[in-house]
Every structure is written in structure tokens, then in C-alpha cells.
């Protein structure tokens, strides 16, 4: 019985007309949480965390670099899952979610690449190396760009969403490649320190800013995604009376 209620509930909120005002209510709260978490994360990362005994102050780049890299993969997974849901159940809202994910995920990927480069230069002596981790992250960036270009090249929004979803799903194979690249290949990039079962290799004063920034970036992603989804809903639902009433009531 509960499942039926959940399905009915999901169906209700999956309608653009219900989702649009709901997203509008959520955005200020998500934005507020993002600002508070970013402030806390910056304080912990810049003032509380100690410099690394080997890498000195450059270790503070990690509090941007690692959460950005996590988000680059997480947002891709959300985009692919939303695309799959749109393909299987034909849910328009999932199409707009997938579409909103692409530019945000591409931004996080670019940020991970830029900050990695800025960290690599002083520590490795090179802005870029064709290391497995760096290369697979660069491929992720191209996948995002490809998904966006493919969507933009097709006029009909539903066909565009379907094509983009299929490309996004094919590109999912790259996600485990990025994750395991530091184990499968002999890389210059250091292996993971967080999330290794039973082997904490990171001190709390470093872990706390890292996790705070990661949660802040997650709330930020939700905020930015809802903003983009609302824009797309207005455009795609312009032939409905509720959008017309909403637009005309706003003069």
C-alpha cells in the first residue's frame, strides 16, 4: 500500500505544474544552506586545517579540488539516472533534470581539472600529465560537452532529451574508470584517502573541511539545478494555461 502512495506522490510532484512552485519554495532554503556550509567549509579549510608536512599550504587546494572531482562524477550519475528514468517512464521532469545537470557537471569537472593543474604544478612540477586519472577526468569533461552539444543540435525537446540520455548512459562506463584509475594503473595521481574501508588515512582536521565542502557543493548543485529546471519548464510548458497565467500575473 505504502508503495502505491509513494508512486502517486511521486507522480504528483513529477508534474511540471506542481514541481515549479515547489522548486521555487525550496531554492531559497537550499541557497541559504549552501552559503552557511561554504562559510564553515572555508573557515575550517583555510584557518583550522594545518599545512601538510610534505605539501605545505598547497594542501588547501584539496578542499576545492576533491569535492569538485566528487561532484563531477556524482552529477554525471544523476544526469545518467535521470536520463534513464526519462527513457523508461517517459517523465518530462526527468528530462529537464538531466538537461540541468550537464552544464553544472561540466563546470565541476572543469574546476577539478583547473585546480588539479594548479596543484600539480608546484607538487609534480607539471601543469598536466597524461596520467590515467587526469585523462579519464578530461574524457568526462568531453562527455558533458558532447551531451550538451547533442541536445542543442536537435530541435524537438523530447527527441533531444532521448538522444542526450542515450549518450549519457553510454558514457557511464567512464565513471568507474575514473574511480579505479589510481588502482588499475600506475598513476602519478595519489590514491583515495577517504572512503577506504576500515583504513582512515586522513586526520579529522583535514577530513572535516573536505566533507563540509562536499556537502556545500551538493546543496549548491541542487540550488543551481532547480534554477535551470524552472527556466526549462517555463519554456517547454509555454502552451499550457498555468504558465501563461503565471507569466501574465508577473507584470
Amino acid at each position: 500500500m505504502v508503495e502505491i502512495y509513494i508512486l502517486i506522490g511521486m507522480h504528483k510532484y513529477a508534474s511540471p505544474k506542481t514541481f515549479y512552485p515547489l522548486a521555487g519554495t525550496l531554492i531559497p532554503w537550499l541557497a541559504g544552506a549552501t552559503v552557511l556550509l561554504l562559510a564553515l567549509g572555508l573557515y575550517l579549510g583555510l584557518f583550522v586545517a594545518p599545512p601538510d608536512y610534505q605539501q605545505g599550504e598547497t594542501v588547501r587546494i584539496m578542499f576545492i579540488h576533491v569535492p569538485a572531482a566528487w561532484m563531477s562524477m556524482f552529477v554525471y550519475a544523476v544526469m545518467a539516472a535521470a536520463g534513464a528514468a526519462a527513457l523508461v517512464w517517459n517523465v518530462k521532469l526527468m528530462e529537464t533534470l538531466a538537461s540541468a545537470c550537464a552544464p553544472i557537471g561540466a563546470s565541476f569537472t572543469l574546476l577539478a581539472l583547473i585546480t588539479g593543474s594548479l596543484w600539480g604544478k608546484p607538487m609534480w612540477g607539471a601543469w598536466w600529465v597524461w596520467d590515467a586519472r587526469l585523462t579519464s577526468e578530461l574524457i568526462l569533461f568531453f562527455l558533458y560537452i558532447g551531451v550538451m552539444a547533442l541536445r542543442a543540435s536537435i530541435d524537438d525537446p523530447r527527441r533531444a532529451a532521448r538522444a542526450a540520455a542515450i549518450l549519457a548512459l553510454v558514457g557511464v562506463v567512464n565513471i568507474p574508470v575514473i574511480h579505479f584509475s589510481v588502482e588499475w594503473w600506475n598513476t602519478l595521481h595519489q590514491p583515495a584517502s577517504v572512503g577506504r574501508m576500515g583504513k582512515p588515512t586522513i586526520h579529522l582536521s583535514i577530513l572535516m573541511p573536505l566533507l563540509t565542502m562536499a556537502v556545500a557543493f551538493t546543496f549548491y548543485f541542487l540550488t543551481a539545478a532547480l534554477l535551470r529546471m524552472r527556466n526549462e519548464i517555463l519554456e517547454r510548458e509555454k502552451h499550457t494555461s498555468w504558465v501563461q497565467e503565471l507569466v501574465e500575473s508577473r507584470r
Partner: protein
Amino acid sequence: MNWAEFFSMGGYALYVWSSYAAAAVVLLLNIALPLRRRDAVLNALREFYRLKGRSR
């Protein structure tokens, strides 16, 4: 604490602050662009309904 020392980041100021600046740019753009787009969409739709109303 000493602010000059803080900003010098142990001699790595360029790398550390460039990273934080890049993050600031990315985070601000992904909010500013959809907000600007929202105004554009609302204006375009207002025009769309005006023309639609006139043709009826």
C-alpha cells in the same frame, strides 16, 4: 594571526588563491546565468502571449 603570512600561503599564494578564485567564478556563474536566463525567458514568453492574444 599574521594576515600577510596567511595570504602568502607559504609561498604558494598563486596556486592556492587561483584555485579558490576559480571555484568562486564557477559557483557564481552557475547561479548568475540561470537567473539572467530567467529574465530572458519571462520577457520572451510575455511577448509570445501578447502576439498570440493579438492574432486571436
